[in-house]
């Protein structure tokens, strides 16, 4: 009866875990995220230690434009949701829907990047550059590292969309989609902290 569920070529419910390679990839990626946690944690520590050392430059509460970052936060949150939907679509083997969600994720990611570039640009206009003060250096490094992660994520997911279009959803491509989704959520989680610790707390003083 159920034999047709397991015919050659039919994908299991969770295609990302179907092969040893897939399971390795997911586990390895989680471990990598553990390392990333420490990476961002160190950047946060440096930022926390230096954020009041503004030298001759502007202070956090003077330059931060909360409305922009709030919108950016919303965008990133929303794109995280899109990415969850993509994985769900994958589990249901709805390839078209999945690609749709992924495209939404990427587009929102690009919007976020655009906003961030716009924001940095404004700060630089106000004399807040990398060499301005210890605060500015640690700020740009922390937020810039996050931005670089977003940019990498956008490229990566775009590439995956192309691969899916070419090769379809298989036990080889599925783990990549799954892993990239986890990566995307992780970036979102980091941003939650950046928004809180850098922007909101910076505004409070």
């Amino acid at each position, binding site marked *: 009866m159920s034999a047709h569920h397991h015919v050659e070529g039919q994908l299991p419910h969770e295609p990302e875990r179907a092969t*040893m390679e897939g*399971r*390795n990839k997911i*586990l*390895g990626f989680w*471990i*990598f995220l*553990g*390392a*990333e946690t*420490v*990476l961002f944690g*160190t*950047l946060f520590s*440096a930022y926390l*230690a*230096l954020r009041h*050392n*503004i*030298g001759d430059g502007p202070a956090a509460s003077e330059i931060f434009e909360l409305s922009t970052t709030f919108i950016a936060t919303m965008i990133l949150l929303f794109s995280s949701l899109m990415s969850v939907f993509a994985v769900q679509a994958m589990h249901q083997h709805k390839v078209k829907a999945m690609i749709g969600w992924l495209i939404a994720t990427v587009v929102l990611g690009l919007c976020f990047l655009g906003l961030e570039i716009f924001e940095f640009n404004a700060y630089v206009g106000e004399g807040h550059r*990398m*060499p*301005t*003060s*210890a*605060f*500015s*250096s*640690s700020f*740009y*490094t922390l937020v810039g590292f996050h931005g670089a992660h977003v940019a990498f994520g956008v490229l990566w997911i775009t*590439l995956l969309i192309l*691969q899916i279009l070419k*090769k379809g959803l298989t036990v*080889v491509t599925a783990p*990549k989609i799954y892993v990239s989704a986890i990566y995307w959520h992780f970036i979102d989680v980091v941003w939650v902290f950046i928004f809180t610790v850098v922007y909101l707390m910076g505004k409070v003083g």
Partner: protein
Amino acid sequence: MDWLTTVDHKKIGILYLIAGALFFGVGGLEAILIRIQLIKPMNDFVGADTFNELITMHGTTMIFLAAMPMLFALMNAVIPLQIGARDVAFPFLNALGFWTFFFGGLLLNISWFAGNVPDAGWTSYVPLAGPTYASGHGVDYYVLGLQIAGIGTLLGGVNFMATIINMRAPGMSFMRMPMFTWTIFITSVMIVFAFPVLTVGLVALMFDRLFQANFFETASGGSAILWEHVFWVFGHPEVYILILPAFGVISEVVSTFSRKRLFGYSSMVFATVLIAFLGFMVWAHHMFTTGLGPVANALFSIATMLIAVPTGVKIFNWLFTLWGGSIRFTTSSLFAIGFIPTFVMGGVTGVMLAVAPADYQYHDSYFVVAHFHYVIVGGLVFGLFAGLHYWWPKMFGRMLNEKIGQVTFWTFFVGFHLTFFVQHFLGLLGMPRRVWTYLPDQGFDNMNFISTIGAFLMGIGTIAMIINVIVTSAKPRNALADPWEDGRSLEWTIPSPPPEYNFKQLPLVRGYDAWWKEKMEGKTEMTPAEPVGPIHMPSPSILPLVMSIGLFIAGFGFMYDKLIVTFVGMAITLGCMLLRSVFDDHGFHIEVEEQEKGVQA
């Protein structure tokens, strides 16, 4: 060519060994030059600048480019075999890790030829290593070289963590893993959580040096102490990353050559985990004199001392493994047995250093140099020698010559104690470390002379080992599968050296010391856990090498501010990543008939 594209963990292990040995030679040569300079007061064998370059490169090379890769050599050579796997979880990443390490190390050492050598100590404290006081490119080599090599190490850590979690043979639960596998597992965990800290520190230093950032520039509100924190948050776990694998080697060697089960296996596991955990909580013991205040000093003192307890558990467990055993003295077991008292001497001076007020006296004196060479050379290097002699037949199919091995051990052992024992007293008598010379008549002269003599003996020991390797490589490959006859774990169940796929059939593990258990029940091989069948293998790839070359080129671009070069380098690396992502590696299969051939060859 084969070697440039290999993704086979055994071959990568050998590559790590060759590169590590090469860098050990370089670091050792630097050590010899250091010791020659210090042989007598006011010596002018090398100048002050050169001396600082020598100690910096000696420390950096030895730790990152000699010790770490040789550990990775053993990890690669042994771990998949010990857990009954055909390869690591990510063979491609494994190759990539090796090549990035290698090119990072190369970049660092090219500094000798570029005439700009890092000279701020292996700890590169700012402001001395900052843009103002180290305006040449010396420290840039340190920053970029370590950054690139660090990527390789991090990849290795992720890889071995995943391998040990996911790739164990059927029946091998965590509490049945050999002790060496356990220590490598914990080491990998520590690598994963410690190296990103170094990455960030190096990024910050690089930004300061290349883009006028102000992390450590006190004039613009930066903090020099921040660097000390970041360095040691990484640096202290790093020293346990170095020693834990050695602990693992000793556990294996001691138990094999005393024909006894490892005493207190579960407490050993627990102690390893505890050491790793505490290892992350004690970094400020390198900063007692920095001025952190009495509360921090007191807390870090106590936390540091606590590490003595789990370490002691290990020491006594080894001693009681030997107790009641039937101890056979080979080069390998000599090094392991030499390790125990030597490491204890280094460990107890560590606890002395942990006494913060006394450390105000010891800190940055030769006492510290003595301490860490006792734990690093007397611990880690002895462990490496023990491990290399122990697993050599498994790696190369040939037994190392025992007679030359004994020469290696005795010259190295005696030379070691001669070199470093007196250094404790040099420190106590008031000799600071990192001094390129010293005035006569301060009570330092004789002991420095003794110390230098010892260093030469260690050099002779190392050369004996090299001769041994050369002599051995001319012999036929005739090592048995279980050449020490008392092997206990899975690597001794397969031919030496193992075929490409390691295990024709994955073994079924029925208990701790899997192979020993079968032997005791009179079996001559493991029970297979799967039928004979075609074996899937990953394809070799040149990409890891090319990617690392890309990073290497980008490193130069960063350093000399040539945007195009940076861009080309990064493009090569990213392009390779793209290729890797787009073209799936389907690998190939080794069919059953070929497997038969493989065994005969």
